[in-house]
């Protein structure tokens, strides 16, 4: 943030300046809001004074002038953020981020687990700022709900353990039918990260996914896999799943006769039960599922259909991401989720995955091709060859790989 900018808690004497900022900042949206809604977002100074009773207000001061503000209201389930505005001439200086950081610090200090706010779909810059700051889109709110102007809610979990080690694979040797495929693989994944594991056919990518998920046909020869500091390899596949491990299949299996919603509710409730949380009955679950389905743009008609039966390739992959959304895993391994998808389906799937990124969980993308990484930008790229990771780097590595081809890393593997 610009050195001339200072963020501080507002005092009652700032009320006029705060009201002024709100009316200036929201002026550009006057035509998009109803008059009632406009009155709410631009309250007069005396109303601002009243708000000091409800919760803290912050202001940003630049060159001794108040240029931005935000306020919060502590509510039982979250810290509600409202009336955030930055004057047009002070935008682009990182002031928005600074305000959100102040709010988040306040939230953590006061033991809130979640930040919550309402915005409107036309406030594109604001939504971008919130998303950059780790907020996720919640539900759409109707015009009736909020003074005739439809909008959406957004929220962010705070005080989590972002950056904590989630998965640690140490010198893993594993294979199938007596053939060793993974030959000393090492991998570390922390919470909040997205990893891509790339490699040519036969490099062992899919074997790694299956070993992590616990496929009974694969055997671990030696090595260690720690998941949240526990020995993952000791757990049965279903225990792993209930502990938050999820694998999206390259070839999702069809389950005729069982509807998607029956199946998903069973899976969801098994997890809830395991964690001692409340299970959902069919009606409650249906509402939950409807919300989740929006993430992958799936219509509710898919809920009644048998799991994956008669689904196109793209629909099956979307259904995998829907399952991921429903089960809210800590570690999601997406095994060749991009294979067989056309560009539109790929975009929907990738956007779905992006919406599910958060600070408490990690995603491992296993893929042959770089194109998925145009849509889901990884924090770390690993390149596999001959059963090991042979190269690691940032997102640029994927592009370099695309350019030079896998022979480049195959050379690296054999020269070791």
């Amino acid at each position, binding site marked *: 943030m610009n050195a001339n900018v200072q963020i501080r808690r507002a005092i009652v004497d700032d009320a006029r300046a705060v009201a002024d900022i709100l009316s200036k900042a929201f002026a550009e949206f006057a035509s998009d809001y109803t008059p009632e809604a406009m009155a709410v977002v631009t309250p007069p100074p005396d109303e601002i004074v009243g708000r000091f009773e409800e919760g803290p207000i912050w202001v940003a001061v630049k060159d001794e002038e108040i240029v931005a503000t935000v306020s919060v209201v502590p509510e039982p389930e979250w810290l509600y953020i409202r009336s955030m505005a930055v004057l047009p001439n002070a935008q682009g200086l990182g002031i928005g981020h600074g305000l959100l950081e102040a709010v988040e610090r306040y939230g953590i200090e006061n033991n809130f687990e979640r930040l919550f706010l309402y915005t409107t779909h036309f406030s594109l810059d604001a939504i971008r700022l919130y998303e950059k700051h780790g907020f996720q889109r919640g539900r759409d709110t109707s015009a009736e709900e909020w003074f005739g102007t439809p909008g959406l809610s957004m929220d962010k979990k705070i005080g989590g353990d972002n950056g904590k080690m989630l998965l640690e694979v140490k010198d893993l040797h594993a294979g199938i039918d007596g053939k060793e495929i993974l030959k000393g693989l090492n991998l570390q994944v922390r919470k909040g990260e997205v990893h891509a594991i790339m490699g040519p056919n036969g490099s062992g990518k899919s074997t790694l996914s299956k070993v992590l998920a*616990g496929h009974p046909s694969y055997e671990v020869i030696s090595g260690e896999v720690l998941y949240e500091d526990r020995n993952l390899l000791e757990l049965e596949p*279903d225990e792993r799943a209930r502990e938050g491990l999820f694998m999206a299949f390259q070839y999702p299996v069809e389950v005729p006769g069982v509807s998607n919603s029956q199946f998903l509710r069973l899976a969801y409730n*098994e997890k809830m039960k395991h964690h001692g949380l409340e299970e959902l009955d069919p009606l409650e679950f249906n509402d939950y599922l409807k919300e989740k389905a929006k993430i992958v743009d799936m219509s509710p008609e898919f809920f009644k259909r048998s799991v994956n039966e008669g689904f196109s390739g793209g629909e099956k992959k979307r259904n995998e991401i829907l399952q991921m959304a429903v089960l809210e895993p800590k570690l999601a391994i997406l095994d060749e989720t991009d294979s067989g998808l056309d560009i539109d389906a790929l975009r929907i799937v990738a956007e779905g995955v992006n919406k599910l990124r958060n600070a408490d969980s990690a995603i491992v993308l296993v893929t042959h091709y770089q194109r998925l990484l145009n849509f889901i930008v990884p924090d770390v790229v690993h390149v596999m060859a001959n059963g090991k990771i042979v190269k690691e780097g940032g997102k640029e590595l994927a592009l370099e790989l695309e350019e030079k081809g896998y022979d480049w890393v195959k050379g690296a593997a054999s020269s070791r």
Partner: protein
Amino acid sequence: MVNQFTEQFKESLKSEESAWLRGLRTDAFSVFSMSGFPTVQNEDWKYTNVAKVSSENWTVSGKNISNDAELAGAFEMLLKSFDYKRNGFTALNLAFANVICIRIAKETNLEKPVEVSFAGDEETATFPHVLVIAEAGSKATFLETYTGSGKNFTNAVVQIIVEDNANLTHYRVQKESAEAFHIGTTDVMLGRGSLYNATNINLGGALSRHDVNVKFTAEGGECFVDGLYMLNGSQHADTHSIIDHAVPNCVSHQTYKGVLNDKSRGVFNGKVFVRENASGTDARQSNKNLLLSNEARVDTKPQLEIFNDDVKCAHGATVGQLEEEELFYLLTRGLNKELARNLLTYGFAEEIINKIEIDSIKKELDQAVLNRLTKLETEIL
């Protein structure tokens, strides 16, 4: 030859007022007296030993009073055409037949299903004989259920005619007690452009047998003859079907599924005949069986006999256990092994049950299937 039914037959014949029917019953009873029940030496009864049926003492229940006026015309012709000589059960049925006539009038569309249900009491033998005529252009659903108690013997026959361009949906639900003996015969004749859609559910009975015979009598007919047998304990269920493409350009679909647990035993014998002149026939038949225990057993024999080159036919049978990959998929979603197995089994059976369009019946069957799958029952409903 005198048998356990001889005295009871003499007695019941006294109340038969129709002369032609008295004659028919007498002939039928003498056929039964000569042949007795079929034995395993008979190729059609090779896997199904009914010795236990004949060794019990049965009291014939229900009266065989029939109404001459009602039985006149088409129903009389239909009953007279019944081939009771094929085995001892069909002969015995006609001898004691409690005849019920159902007519779906020409060009009518019945919203509500026509229902018949039979519940035999302990130690009794019941002999329903239902005649169904779906007249030209009509549309209806016919529901037939069997829910006896204790050790009883039900020997039922249903004769159906689906006339030209008529559409009949037929649900046959056999939920007899676990000790019951159930023998059923369904004969169906299909007219020009008719549609017959049958779902046969077999859940009950210590020993049950269902023979279903469908014959196309004019071009453009189509039939679905599907079924499910879900067995546990030491239940034995046998389905014998014959689909007879006697005329050109008819379509038949047959999907039978079996779920066999414990020491249960299933038999499926499906014959499809495509006669010499029946060009343009399209016949599909499949029988899939899921064995849930090492001691369960199924004998399946799909047979196609084709005497014409211009046909599309496919048939197949499978006997197997749950697929490893399917199980793994469910495990990775957090379902434990038992739940995963039960869910896959439920899904396997549901493919047939899902065909049923009467909500109350479908729910009841869902429940019946779930009752057999411990743990799943409470989770899914």
